[in-house]
């Protein structure tokens, strides 16, 4: 049979054929799953130590962990950087608000329906939009989000338009009692766990492998038998479903919602920033990115009230330049190649 590559003495590196341990398939390795469960339990425990102000901050962090992980599925794994993911957030929120306000559905039913509706919308616009690439895809998805905000603003009798809409949460009229801070803490924790779980399962599964192949080279992925159109739309739909669920829960938490808030482009950009700074295409990256960035912006909001976004902007610029591939990817690469220089990182994309 062909001689093994070892004897082809390439000046760069002689392949050593050490006895190779039977590498476990990635998803069988127990460590990540155990760690995940442990973290969830820790968060439950943490809840008892926090008082209201802190609890609401941590709840928001859970929300952004879920949003960042959802964006990671389409932007990180598949490499289609959507700048309109907030459309699913708004859709989820308004579906819940409308069905609870007009038809008194209970929240849990509304939650599931909102997620499915957002997913359906994702599949609907995914088919045409995922044919676009690069800037064009980013701007088209941004256009969809901005367009949807205008549509919602112009349907006052259904959505309350600019004046907003309120979900009945108190008294006889309330289909589901308000969950309160503790309730939403657990709800968003579960949503965050669901998003991380989905990303973890996707990343280790056959589907995740297909998405990564598409991200690296769509033509090559096609000729390996991957139906690239189907895989891309599925990733976009799954991401839409998760963001829809989070939007629905956010609407219930806020009680009164407005189009500018539910379709705010900053929400999408925050998702992108968290994934990019954390480490696009990894599971740990968006998790760390969301926790770090959301905690940081809370801290800045409290201590530097009017300088808050100014400093956040500066941090985004520095992070994009110093760590374009994100903390987790940088750490993994550095560990493997023993090269910790940030300078090489900066020089990588320079003209």
């Amino acid at each position, binding site marked *: 049979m062909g001689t*093994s590559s070892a004897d082809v003495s390439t000046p760069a590196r002689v392949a050593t054929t050490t006895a190779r341990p039977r590498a476990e398939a990635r*998803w069988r390795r127990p460590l990540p799953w155990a760690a995940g469960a442990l973290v969830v339990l820790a968060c439950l425990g943490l809840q008892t130590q926090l008082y209201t102000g802190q609890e609401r901050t941590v709840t928001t962090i859970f929300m952004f962990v879920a949003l960042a992980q959802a964006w990671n599925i389409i932007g990180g794994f598949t490499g289609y950087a959507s700048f309109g993911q907030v459309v699913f957030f708004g859709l989820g929120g308004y579906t819940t608000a409308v069905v609870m306000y007009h038809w008194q559905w209970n929240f849990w039913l509304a939650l599931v329906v909102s997620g499915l509706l957002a997913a359906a919308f994702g599949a609907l616009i995914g088919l045409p939009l995922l044919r676009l690439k690069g800037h064009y895809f980013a701007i088209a998805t941004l256009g969809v989000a901005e367009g949807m905000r205008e549509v919602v603003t112009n349907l006052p009798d259904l959505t309350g338009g600019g004046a907003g809409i309120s979900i009945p949460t108190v008294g006889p009229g309330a289909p589901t009692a308000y969950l309160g801070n503790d309730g939403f803490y657990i709800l968003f924790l579960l949503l965050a766990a669901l998003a991380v779980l989905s990303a973890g399962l996707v990343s*280790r599964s056959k589907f995740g492998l297909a998405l990564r192949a598409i991200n690296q*080279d769509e033509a090559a992925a096609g000729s*390996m*038998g991957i139906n690239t159109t189907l895989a891309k739309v599925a990733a976009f739909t799954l991401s839409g479903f998760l963001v829809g669920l989070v939007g629905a829960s956010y609407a219930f938490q806020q009680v009164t919602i407005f189009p500018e808030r539910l379709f705010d482009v900053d929400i999408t950009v925050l998702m992108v920033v968290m994934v990019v700074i954390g480490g696009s295409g990894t599971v740990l990256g968006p998790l760390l990115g969301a926790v770090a960035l959301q905690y940081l912006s809370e801290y800045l909001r409290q201590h530097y009230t009017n300088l808050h976004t100014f400093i956040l902007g500066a941090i985004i610029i520095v992070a994009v330049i110093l760590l374009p591939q994100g903390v987790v990817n940088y750490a993994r690469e550095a560990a493997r190649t023993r090269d910790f220089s940030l300078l090489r990182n900066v020089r990588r994309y320079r003209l």
Partner: protein
Amino acid sequence: MSEGGAAPETPVLDVRGLGRRFGGLQALADVSFTVPRGRTLGIIGPNGAGKSTFINLVTGHIRPTSGRVLIDGRDMTGARPWSVARAGVARTFQIVKPFRGMTVRENVAVGILYGPEGTGIMSHALTAADEVLEQVGLGALADRPPGELTVADARRLELAKALALRPRLLLLDEVMAGLRHREIEPSLALISSLKKQGMTIIAVEHVMKAILAISDEVLVLHRGRVLTSGEPDAVLSDPRVIEAYLGHRYVKRQRAVSRDA
């Protein structure tokens, strides 16, 4: 090109009047031939002759503007790349395209998971991927990121990814390009072993030594048309082929030199 006496078994690949036009440029025009089971067809031609266009038309990466492509008798003209792959046609890429962010083993597992006999179970695919890697001599590098492979190993990975689809037809797009002398020998041995296993192969190549070693028949493309085809030795000494490669005056001078000698 069908076998002499044997019943005319449907060819693995049957191309009829295949053509592709990009705006004013006719990149490929009226290309017709068939490749019976188990045979190896070498395709040669100078740069810009339309070789890569031909492969991309067969694999569905670009849609033909004329002609038909039949695989095992089924009309796959203009089919999407993944349906062509699932019909048992695998290809390597001229510009090596490993999937970064995955290990060498996972690169191969993609083919096993999504090929004709796609198994859903990840661990089965990973084990099968190890077997294919052993077959091409990359067993030792299974856990490596593909970015660290040498040119020769990266070409082997391309081959392994194609074999992972358990193909009936293998399209090799310049698998030998850029290999140093010592690296060509093992690749040739690998391809001949595939031939022995009855694999039908189309090899687009510039390295003539490889074409001669593995081709049962050679087809010459020049400026998007079939210049000639036939036995390897006959084709390579055909003056029109030499002219296509070395320039028309070279042939005239050679003829003059041989006349004086």
